[in-house]
C-alpha cells in the first residue's frame, strides 16, 4: 500500500501556491521506487524540479495564499465512492458556502473537490468533513455489529416469524 510522504514544492508566482505531495511506494525488501536519482526528497529542495516524479502520484491543493478559504483539492486513485461521500459530509457543515466534485476524465483515477467556505481555511474544513465521515462510518459499523449480534441471539424466535417481505 502506498505511504504518503510530504514533499512540499512551493512555487510562488503571482500569489498562487501549489502544494505537491508525492507518494512513495514502499515495496517489501525496503527498495524505494521513486524515480531516477531518488533520495533527498524529504527537505523540499527540488533544485529546479529535475526529479522524475511520475505526475500521477500527486495530491494537490490548488488555491491562493492570500485567500485560504477557497481551494480545489485534487486526489489521485479516487472516484465517486469517496468524492460523493465527502461532498455530502462537506455540505452538512455550516461553514461551507459551496462544495462540489468533478472527475476530469473517467480513464484517469483523479477527482477534483472544490470547497469554498465562509472564511475558514478550506483545508481545515475538508479535514473536519473527513473526520465527520470517519465518525459516521465508525458509528455505522458499531450499530451494524450490534444488530447482527442481536439478530443472532434472537434467531430461534425469528425463524418462527420469518419472511416479513415477499
Amino acid at each position, binding site marked *: *500500500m502506498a505511504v*504518503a510522504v510530504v514533499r512540499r514544492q512551493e512555487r510562488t508566482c503571482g500569489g498562487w501556491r501549489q502544494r505537491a*505531495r508525492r507518494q512513495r511506494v514502499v*515495496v*517489501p*525488501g525496503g*527498495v524505494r521506487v521513486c524515480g531516477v536519482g531518488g533520495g533527498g526528497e524529504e527537505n523540499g529542495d527540488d533544485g529546479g524540479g529535475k526529479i522524475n516524479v511520475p505526475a500521477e502520484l500527486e*495530491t494537490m*491543493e490548488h488555491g491562493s495564499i492570500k485567500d485560504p478559504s477557497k481551494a480545489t*483539492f485534487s*486526489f489521485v486513485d*479516487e*472516484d*465517486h*465512492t*469517496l468524492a*460523493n*461521500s*465527502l*461532498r*455530502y459530509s462537506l*455540505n*452538512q*457543515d*455550516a461553514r*461551507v*458556502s459551496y462544495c462540489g466534485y468533478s472527475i476530469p476524465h473517467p480513464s484517469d483515477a483523479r477527482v477534483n473537490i472544490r470547497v469554498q467556505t465562509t472564511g475558514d481555511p478550506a*483545508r481545515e474544513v*475538508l*479535514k473536519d468533513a*473527513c*473526520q*465527520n*465521515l*470517519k*465518525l*459516521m*462510518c*465508525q*458509528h*455505522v*459499523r458499531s*450499530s*451494524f*455489529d*450490534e*444488530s*447482527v449480534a*442481536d*439478530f*443472532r441471539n434472537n*434467531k430461534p424466535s425469528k425463524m418462527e416469524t420469518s419472511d*416479513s*417481505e*415477499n
Partner: protein
Amino acid sequence: MVHTGFNIIIKALFLFRAFARQNPDLNPSSVVGFSPFLGALLATIHYCLVAPKFRRESNDSIDQIQEATMSEEESSSNSGSDESMSEDERREAPKNDFSSIWDLPDVPKGQLPPHLTRQKTRVFCKADAPTHTDNVQYSGAYASIGVDNSLQIDFFRKNFRVEVIKLDKDVMEFDMIGIDAAIANAFRRILISEVPTMAIEKVLIANNTSLVQDEVLAHRLGLIPISADPRLFEYLSANDTPNEKNTIVFKLHVHCKRGEPRRSVYSEELQWLPNGSGFAKESERSDAKSSTYTSFNCSQDSVPEFSNNPIRPTDDKIILAKLGPGQEIELEAHAVKGMGKAHAKWSPVGTAWYRMLPEVVLEENVVGEDAEELKRKCPVNVFDIEDMGNGKKRATVARPRACTLCRECIRGEKWEKRVSLLRVKDHFIFTIESTGQLPPEVLFTEAVKILEDKCQRVIDELS
C-alpha cells in the same frame, strides 16, 4: 400584465392620434421618430408607478393593479397618476398587518412546513416519472426561513439504526435507517470493487491436451472463488517474489485414460499445496540448486488458521473442463490478493444492491368495489381488504415493503389521485450476496473499514 400592456399601446395610439390631429402638416419621418420615444416614456412611467405593486407578496395585488390602471385610464393623463397611487397605497395598507407569512400564529417556527418535509424526505413515484429525487443537502438551504439543514454528528448518531432482516451463510438483507444515499452508495461500490479477496492469477500449464484452450482454462480457474481469508495475506506487487505470505498454490492433475468414458473436471480436484510450487524452474547454471516458482519459507499449513481448515474452492462442483479419453491436464495455479476494481474475479460479492423503502399511501378512502379492484390489481398483494361491518369493505395497505413499483395501482386516471407511491429517502434495504469467501456481515464491516481508511488517508495527506 397583458391588460396593462394593452393599456400602454392604447394610450400611445390615443396620444398619437391627438398629436397628429393638432399637427396636420407632419411629415411621416418625424412621426416615426417620435412614437418610439413616446412608447418608451409611457412604459417607463408605467414601470415606475404601477409595476412596484407587483412586487408585494399579498394576494390582493393583482386586483389592485388592475384598479390602478383603470384609474389611470380615467384620468387619461400622466399627471393624475400620483394621486391614484397614493389611493392604492391607502387601500392596501389595512391588509398588510404582518411582515411575512412566518409570523402567522399557526406556522411552526424552526421547522419546515409539512409539505416541504414530505418533499425533502420522500421520492414521489408518479405515473410518468419520479419527482423530488434530489436530496436537499446544502446546510443553508432553508436559511431564509430560519430552518437549519445542517446535520450534526450527534443527530446522526441518535437517529441511525440498523435492522437485520435475513442473515445466511451467503445472503444477508438488512435495513439502514437514517443514512444518506451518498454513503449507502459508497458502501455498495466498495463492496463490489474494493474489498480484496484471493483469486487465481497465474497458471503454469505443464500439459493440456484437452479441448479447452489454455487461456480459456486459465480464465475459468481465475473465476473460482477461493475460501481463504484475504486479511491474512498481503498484496503481491510486480517485483515481489511469491512467498507464503502472498500466494496460494493449487495443483490440478487429471487424466482421462483410454477406454474410460468422458469425464468432467470439477473444482474439488484442485489440490492445495501448502509448501509452495512443485514445478522446478529451468536454470541455466548446472550447479545451481533447482528453484521453484515460489519461495515458501515455511509451510502455510503451520499457520493455525489453515491447519484445521485447508484452503479450497468454496464450491466443489464447479465444472472446469471436460476430458475425453486420452486427454490430460497438468497445471499449477497461483492465487494472489486483488480487488474487484482490477478484475471481477476478485469481487467478493455476487452482487450487492439496495433499494429505498416503499411507502404506499391511500389519499382517499377506497371502499366497496374499488377496494376489491385495487386488491386484485397489485401483483405482490400490497393491499388488503378490511371489513368495516355492515358489509362495507375498505382497502388498506398491508405489505408496503413488497412493492416493486410496477405502478399498476396508479394506472388509470381515477387511481392516480387515490394512491400515491412514495419512497423514503433515508431508509435503505440492503442486500448482500456473498460468493462464499467471507460471510456477508464480515464483508459489510470490511467495506465500512475501507471507507474509514480512505478518509484517514485524505486527512493524512492534507496535514
